């Protein structure tokens, strides 16, 4: 019993949002932002993109965005794209546990968001990202967002939409978007003085190592170069789109010039190993800026006087002693990521089996859902020439007018659970007394 309890405790200590869900997406590691030559000083800068305009691929265009189902903090939208002359309808839904929706290329509609964190290969990923703030943000008409499709970043412009009859533009509040389960793509976006989000990634250098047939890659991203921009960038964000997390790096709005920094990217769960990531902004002559005044990242370390050094000496010694025994921040994440990658690459279905069990466990242990509708998964089976079909429809869990029944059930179940925990506590107390 003790071993079981400790094991379960260990499992609980693993945060669900840091778990790697699908190793299959590592196959897209080589789908990164296309490497282009560094911009020269005479580059003609494009005009700010218009609503729905493409940023990278002529095969895709954003047609429109319509709200489908608006509840308090839960919304789903239909995004209509045109890809390779085929119409594609994507349903995008937001929720804490299912932040993304996926859709098959070429299908006319997609009515089931990603199920159980499994991302079928060949589907389109939609990411709306505007803010690093996970406390929720507003999406309103005219806002622009980044959309990543097949590893390329597009700009998503919110069309005018309204759910009311008086044509008043409506602002909907969203749940926070946590970018997990995305492509392993690096990108830098910035917001200019007029508030327009722009893709600034211009140059990405990567080294690939550890390549084995049929496995994922270890990719070391060594160099980023920003686009030369003719406008003032008021904020800059460095995104690492991975399966598990994003790394965001914001520059204060007063810093109009992007600083440089070395990044040690330690979370290698998504398939690439440790490595320094340098973000090198370029000046108007095309040269990399490596030493910027008021670089808030480096200046702090360079201005320490002797007295400050003496004062900080005991703390530094203590930090050194602690450092002997306490791993650095992120070490365990990195360590876990290494094992996760190793096991997923080599243990095949054994790893996937445990992974599935963890998904089930996570589903059970995740909090209550605010959704009152569920979509029954579609299932079909051929039996002696007869096709048996089931599911694919949406079920309203709480019929209209029966909300009181839901409240009663919750109250009764809560009461029973509390009684049970009290009873359990009394028994446990008795057992402790008789130890």
């Amino acid at each position, binding site marked *: *019993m*003790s071993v079981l*309890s*400790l094991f379960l*405790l260990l499992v*609980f200590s693993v945060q669900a949002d840091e778990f790697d869900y699908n190793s299959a997406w590592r196959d897209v590691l080589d789908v990164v932002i296309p490497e282009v030559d560094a911009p020269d000083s005479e580059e003609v800068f494009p005009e700010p993109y218009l609503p729905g305009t493409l940023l990278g691929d002529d095969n895709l265009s954003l047609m429109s965005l319509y709200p489908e189902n608006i509840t308090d903090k839960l919304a789903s939208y239909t995004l209509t794209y045109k890809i390779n002359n085929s119409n594609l309808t994507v349903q995008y839904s937001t929720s804490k546990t299912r932040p993304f929706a996926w859709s098959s290329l070429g299908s006319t509609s997609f009515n089931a968001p990603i*199920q*159980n964190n*499994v991302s079928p290969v060949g589907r389109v990923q939609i990411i709306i990202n505007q803010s690093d703030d996970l406390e929720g943000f507003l999406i309103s008409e005219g806002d622009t967002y980044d959309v990543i499709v097949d590893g390329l970043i597009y700009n998503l412009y919110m069309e005018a939409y309204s759910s009311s009859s008086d044509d008043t533009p409506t602002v909907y509040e969203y749940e926070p978007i946590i970018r997990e389960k995305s492509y392993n793509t690096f990108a830098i976006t910035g917001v200019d003085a007029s508030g327009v989000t722009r893709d600034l990634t211009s140059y990405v250098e990567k080294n690939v190592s550890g390549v084995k047939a049929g496995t994922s890659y270890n990719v070391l991203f060594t160099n980023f170069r920003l686009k030369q921009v003719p406008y003032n960038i008021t904020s800059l964000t460095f995104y690492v789109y991975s399966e598990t997390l994003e790394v965001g790096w914001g520059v204060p709005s007063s810093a109009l010039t992007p600083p440089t920094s070395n990044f040690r990217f330690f979370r290698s769960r998504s398939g690439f190993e440790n490595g320094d990531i340098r973000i090198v902004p370029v000046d108007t002559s095309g040269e990399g800026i490596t030493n910027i005044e008021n670089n808030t990242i480096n200046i702090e370390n360079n201005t320490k006087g002797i007295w400050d050094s003496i004062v900080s000496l005991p703390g530094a010694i203590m930090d050194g002693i602690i*450092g*002997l*025994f*306490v*791993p*650095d921040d992120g070490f365990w994440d990195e*360590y876990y990521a*290494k*094992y996760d990658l*190793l*096991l997923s*690459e*080599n*243990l*095949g*279905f*054994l790893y*996937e089996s445990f992974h*599935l069990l963890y*998904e*089930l466990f996570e*589903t*059970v242990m*995740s*909090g*209550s*859902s605010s*959704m*009152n509708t*569920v*979509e*029954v*998964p579609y*299932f079909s089976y051929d039996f002696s020439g007869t096709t048996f079909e089931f599911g694919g429809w949406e079920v309203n*869990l*709480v019929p209209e007018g029966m909300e009181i029944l*839901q409240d009663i*059930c*919750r109250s009764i*179940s*809560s009461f029973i*659970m*509390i009684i*049970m*925990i009290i009873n*359990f*506590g009394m028994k*446990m107390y008795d*057992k*402790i007394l008789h*130890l």
Partner: protein
Amino acid sequence: MIIESLMNLIYNIFDPIISSFNIPKFSDAVRVILDTIIGYFDVGMKILKAYINWDLAVTLFNMCLFAFAGYELLRLVFFILRKVPMFGTK
């Protein structure tokens, strides 16, 4: 640093061993079936969560686990204490 070195050593020992395996993954057909099963499980959980205060249930469940773990830890401590003769614990 000590812990890190130790853990990295363990990893370096396991790495070549595990790397020697090359077990295939589930086929797409199996994967589809499993996804469907998990999908139904997910639907079942959503139904349950619609009528049960699941946040409370999870919290209480965690409390039970911590209580169990604490109890077992206490048993272990008492077990060790009983083994020390000078305490005279029985």
